[in-house]
């Protein structure tokens, strides 16, 4: 057993509760990263007078942007839904995530 592996004893009394909390924590992190990004984005766009809020609300992604969103969505789902199953990690497994946006 490696020293980074999770201890057998659950923190919240039951292993499945720990797993659910891991999913919840991942979601909370993702939610924050997204809110941070959107806030920065809106700020930058507003500074450059590129768009207004109405344009954002009306826009429908197509083509490469739609594909990018699909790829990011899949990575998000793997990160969140996969959280209870990723019982350990290595340098190699982490380095592969460098290209996620």
């Amino acid at each position, binding site marked *: 057993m490696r*020293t980074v592996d999770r201890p057998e004893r659950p923190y919240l009394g039951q292993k499945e509760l720990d797993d659910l909390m891991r999913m919840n924590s991942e979601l909370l*992190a993702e939610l924050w990263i997204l809110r941070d*990004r959107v806030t920065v984005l809106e700020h930058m766009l507003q500074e450059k007078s590129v768009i207004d809020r109405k344009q954002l609300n009306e826009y429908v992604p197509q083509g490469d942007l739609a594909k990018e969103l699909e790829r990011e969505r899949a990575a998000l789902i793997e990160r969140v839904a996969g959280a209870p199953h990723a019982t350990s*990690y290595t340098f190699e497994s982490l*380095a592969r*995530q460098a290209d996620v946006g």
Partner: protein
Amino acid sequence: MITLKQRGRAGLQFLGSLQTFSSSTLRDIAEQDYAAQPEAPELAEEFKSDARPHVWQDRLRRARDVVERSKAYRFNRFYQRWVGEQNYIRAIPAVEARRTEWQAIADAKKPKDTSRLQLNPNLEIPSWYEGVEWHLEPGGWDGYDMTQPMFMAGIGPYVFVHGGYAAVDVFADIRSQRGRVLDQLRVSEPKRIYEVGCGGATTLSIARQKFPNAELIGGDLSPALLRSGHFMSEMLGLNITFRQEDGCNVAEQDNSVDVVISYAVHHEMPPVVTEKVIREMFRILQPGGEMIINDPPPFRAVNPLQAVVLDWDTDNRAEPFFSAAASINLAEIMRDAGFVDVDEFALEKRGYPWVTRGRKPA
């Protein structure tokens, strides 16, 4: 300084905020819950006295049963573990995304003078050290070649800066703590200073500010940390010599240094090794010289809840010797090694930094 991409930055900032919430709001509730338990006063009395390690384990088991009645404590521990893992799970991809830029800086600023970095590829690495992935970092101290940017541009400024992990209290400033520990030295103008288990140049860089004319030497087992320290030292002109060596057997002559610093290393070695290191440091000190140690506080110096928290690191944050180190008495070990004027005290609340210092008889 190279900054992280938005995902890496925001993710690590989130960890810092979550750890702060856990170690302040949840911790405060857990302390209130614990204080309301009927066993709390008796446990508090019991925890004030020294004891052998197996007695501490029994005390801690009973205290943990009481502490864990608190839902806030259980969630606090869950978040501490989760953030501990996520530090690396988020920081390594974030740093990898900037590898090319970091590598360019490292190549451009590569130290020309390597005489102050003395690595020993033939050094026998102690068995207790090998394979430990300290603090949940995959591969341990020498597992990742980008450890320096990972801490300097990621985990350091976004997570550790808030404190609230291991023995470090929430909102504590770990950099100023190092300076305050060095302020406790009673030797006024040391000519030669040796730091055992120096890691990088963190503590020695502060020693340089305080003692601009002293010769500074750091020893450590980890080549990666020594390289990192040397890189920083040469870049900032700190003039520090880094040497890969075992703290039980260092290259310094008898009676050759005025001050020995040991900063947060004894909890990362078995007590029997701590005893050998302290005897070795006594050997190299000049008569009248001083050794100053900062480490997490012993169990006897903190309340039972804090003791349970410290003990928790052993099995949950890859600190295999944390409990063993908190069960021993560093001041007694120093006296047994020959030190005099030995004393011990906490600098901040919850017992950390915990300073133990002693002088070699003049």
